[in-house]
């Protein structure tokens, strides 16, 4: 070994030793430092205030709900005090709405979208696949946010949810355009492309959040 190489090795060893010593010095620091006693009192006071605010919210909510129930009974002609009447009507409305949305999207009426050629059929198939992937990625992301709400900054959650709403709105705009011009293959491809791009974006966000929350 040349003298220069030997010197370099010695320097590297010395450097490693210094790094080890530094790590060891910091690993000896106390892992706990007692906080001032007043902090717990301040935490308790804040929790008291939050609970007081929650109670107030609940009272207001109950009052508003009471008024809504009267409105629902009036609208449906159910002049009864049955506690499930409002919920049943709401559930029925939800089923009708959901069914309407699904059938509109997944089963376009034959007279609206006429399959003219194989290319169009292919594009439609791609669109369905893209929509499926998009809905899965969207659902996964929202579940991830809900499950890890505590670990994410409020601003991050708000920004992601806002973006999801924006994407949904862009998708809806194109879907409306497609309904108005169902045989327009260009719009169909455009919608599928948007789905794929947005799905990629959602998956990337998902990966990023998983890195933070794991």
């Amino acid at each position, binding site marked *: 070994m040349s003298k220069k190489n030997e010197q370099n090795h010695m320097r590297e060893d010395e450097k490693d030793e210094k790094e080890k010593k530094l790590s060891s010095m910091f690993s*000896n*620091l*106390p892992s706990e430092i*007692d906080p001032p006693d007043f902090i717990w009192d301040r935490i308790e006071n*804040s929790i008291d205030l939050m609970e007081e605010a929650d109670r107030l919210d609940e009272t207001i909510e109950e009052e508003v709900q009471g008024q809504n129930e009267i409105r629902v009974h009036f609208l449906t002609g159910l002049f009864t005090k049955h506690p499930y009447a409002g919920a049943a009507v709401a559930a029925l409305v939800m089923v009708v709405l959901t069914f309407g949305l699904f059938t509109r999207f997944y089963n376009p009426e034959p007279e609206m979208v006429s399959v003219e050629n194989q290319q169009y059929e292919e594009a439609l198939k791609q669109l369905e696949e893209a929509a499926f992937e998009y809905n899965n990625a969207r659902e996964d992301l929202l579940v991830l946010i809900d499950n890890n709400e*505590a670990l994410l900054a409020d601003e991050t959650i708000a920004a992601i949810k806002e973006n999801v709403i924006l994407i949904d709105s862009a998708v809806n705009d194109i879907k409306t355009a497609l309904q108005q011009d169902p045989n327009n293959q260009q719009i169909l491809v455009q919608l599928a492309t948007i789905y794929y791009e947005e799905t990629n974006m959602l998956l990337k966000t998902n990966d990023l959040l998983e*890195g933070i929350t794991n």
Partner: protein
Amino acid sequence: MNRIKQTDDTELVKSVQKGDRAAFKTLYEMYAGRIYALTIRMTANSSAADDILQDIFIRAWEKVGTFKFKSAFYTWLHRLAVNVIIRKSQKLKKEGQRESTIEVEDMYKKQGLKKTDSIENRIDCERALLNLPDQARKIFVLYEMEGYTHEQIGKIAGISIGASKAHLSRARSLLKKELRL
């Protein structure tokens, strides 16, 4: 502070999820010391550390319902704490709040630690750490003392892996100089 085994915290957390304040106080007593040490070292600002510790535990109380027992409770609390510390520090920096000094010697005295050579060395380390530039200090604490990877730090702090490595290297070099290694 009460020292209760970490394995006991599952039942406590379940009670807290049902709104049991006494159980929450026990969890606070179990973990506040560790979280406060992290907060003090990452912020280098005693009054900010007090406020941030308070925010961490209030947020934990608010969000404990979302804890699904997939990890240890302390791991969840620690992640939540790091998240709050980074966000609050960025806010303080934007507001231009000056850092309040930390008297490490007084802090150690309050912990009941007697002055010995080994304590002197620890005080020197704490002082050197608190004197580091803000970002370098945070990354050194997370990587060297809390065991985070550069990838995790990058994601939490919103910086690249390379930037995290560069800050760590700078921190180490400054600390070696300050501690005459």
